[in-house]
């Protein structure tokens, strides 16, 4: 489904991502982990077009999407969330999701001005879908509350709801659990699993190691822009290089 080969990104002289190869097959739930500064978010930015790679290729469903604009990539079926809270802060929860159904509601200036019956029907369908998504993620909040006044955990969930509204085939989640308390983490993990069970392929970055190990079938470990390990959670946990990357080589520790 997603094939990345030789992906490289230089910031000045520094290689944030270096000759990265990875494949994701339909229906997988893959984790991307690594110490701070390993280049995980850069990988997401390169896949989704927020950054242009220096070198390398991103192919999605047989189509070369390297260096395309983010909105184009979203249209092909890859949608990402952001590590920091990224929502439409002045919209209500429902409005956030309705706005995110943009790709489903084909726009037309004439229809918009005249409020034709076909445009009203389209809007009704979008509203139904948005309500379904809000309900699915469990964010039924009072109708008029602006999203900015939601608690942190809810905002993160709303970020996921927004990405779902864009109807991705492949969903990239950038640290979906960061800043959540234990109860919120459990709920979010259950939500991610339910999204995956609905048939969305998921690729996620996570700092919460236990959560990543528990969620993902396959884990890719990145250090200073290079892939140092890949495999099932058990294999990765036992990998020497991974232990070194996270805990150091021992020379200084003793």
């Amino acid at each position, binding site marked *: 489904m997603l094939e990345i080969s030789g992906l490289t990104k230089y910031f000045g002289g520094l290689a944030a991502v270096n000759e990265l190869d990875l494949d994701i097959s339909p229906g997988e739930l893959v984790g991307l982990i690594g110490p701070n500064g390993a280049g995980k978010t850069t990988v997401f930015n390169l896949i989704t077009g927020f950054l242009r790679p220096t070198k390398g290729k991103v192919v999605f469903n047989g189509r070369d999407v390297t260096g395309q604009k*983010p909105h184009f990539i979203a249209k092909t079926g890859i949608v990402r969330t*952001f590590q920091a809270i990224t929502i439409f802060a*002045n*919209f209500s929860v429902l409005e956030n999701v309705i*706005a995110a159904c943009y790709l489903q509601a084909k726009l037309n200036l004439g229809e918009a001005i005249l409020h034709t019956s076909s445009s009203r029907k389209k809007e009704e369908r979008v509203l139904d879908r948005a309500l379904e998504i809000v309900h699915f993620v469990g964010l039924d909040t009072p109708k008029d509350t602006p999203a900015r006044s939601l608690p942190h955990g809810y905002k993160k969930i709303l970020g996921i709801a927004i990405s779902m509204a864009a109807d991705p085939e492949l969903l990239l989640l950038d640290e979906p659990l960061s800043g959540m308390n234990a109860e919120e983490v459990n709920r979010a993990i259950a939500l991610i699993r339910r999204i995956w069970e609905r048939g969305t392929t998921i690729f996620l970055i996570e700092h919460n190691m236990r959560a990543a190990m528990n969620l993902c079938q396959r884990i890719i470990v990145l250090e200073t822009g290079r892939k140092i390990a890949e495999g099932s959670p058990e294999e990765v946990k036992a990998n020497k290089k991974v232990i070194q990357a996270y805990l150091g080589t021992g020379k200084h520790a003793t």
Partner: protein
Amino acid sequence: MSKRKLIKPLSYGALLVVLFLLPLFIAQPYVLHVLIMVGINIILASSLRFIATSGQISLGHGGMVSVGAFTSALLVMKLGLSFWASLPLAGVATMILALLVGYPFVRLKGIYFAMITLFLAEFIRLTAEQWKRLTGGVAGIIAIPRPNAVIIPGLLNVDFTSKVDFYYLVLVMVVVTLLILYAIESSRIGMTFFSIQQSEFLAESIGINSSSFRVLAFSIGCFFAGIAGAFYSHYFTAMSPSSFGFLLGINVFIYMVVGGMLRFYGPIIGAFILTVVPELAREVKEFEPFVFAGILLLIILFLPEGLISLPQRLNRIIKKRFSHA
């Protein structure tokens, strides 16, 4: 329909009737002139806010007015078109210019976009001043014909020799402009503009082509600036490259901010008050920019959401007082 739902359309209807009948009671040309200026400024401030809904501030609206004014004047004087054709064509020409410059401009965000629109306005003025054969250079164009008479025997006889006729023309233009802007803003396209305003990254990530939508907002806003310019030139019957431009663009921006950008009616209130108040103090007209700047600063400091938030603000203050007592 419930009673509550009826109140809004009824009060708008009543307001329209009052505005329609107004010239019967107020016939002084001076008062009508002020009302005409209020109308044009409402069109300008509202269309500027329309651009701002997609998260971009233009300080070059005055330049776009200039383009519309020259286009219409030249179409009528050089090509012999009727005003009724040149009015929409001036809007279209301004819109085309906005489309052409829009694509490179929207690469810039925030204050940088505002700056480049300001430069564009100055560029338009300088070009017009140099292009003497077409625009008459610094001196400009005089004897621009008034709008062609509209005569429907037995029904309508409008020949634009009195201010009343212009008043009605502006009234129609304002109503049509506001209806169109409101319809777009409350549609899904408007929602997409607001999405981009709140987070361009997030909008892009869900498939919104933010550049295209920003160009769309910019060019629709500029269309109405062009229309307003066309009206201006045939109303004043003379114009020069410096008639509109830098200062007008800034003033329109001030109308919008002082009235309040967060609501559709904010710029309408702002344009009304800041057009009428200076007329009451005509003796000190030359100090107008200072007064406007002062008002702008006071609003930004004490009422950042504009005059439209004043009732709410007062309400809160009164409630506080009572709860203390």
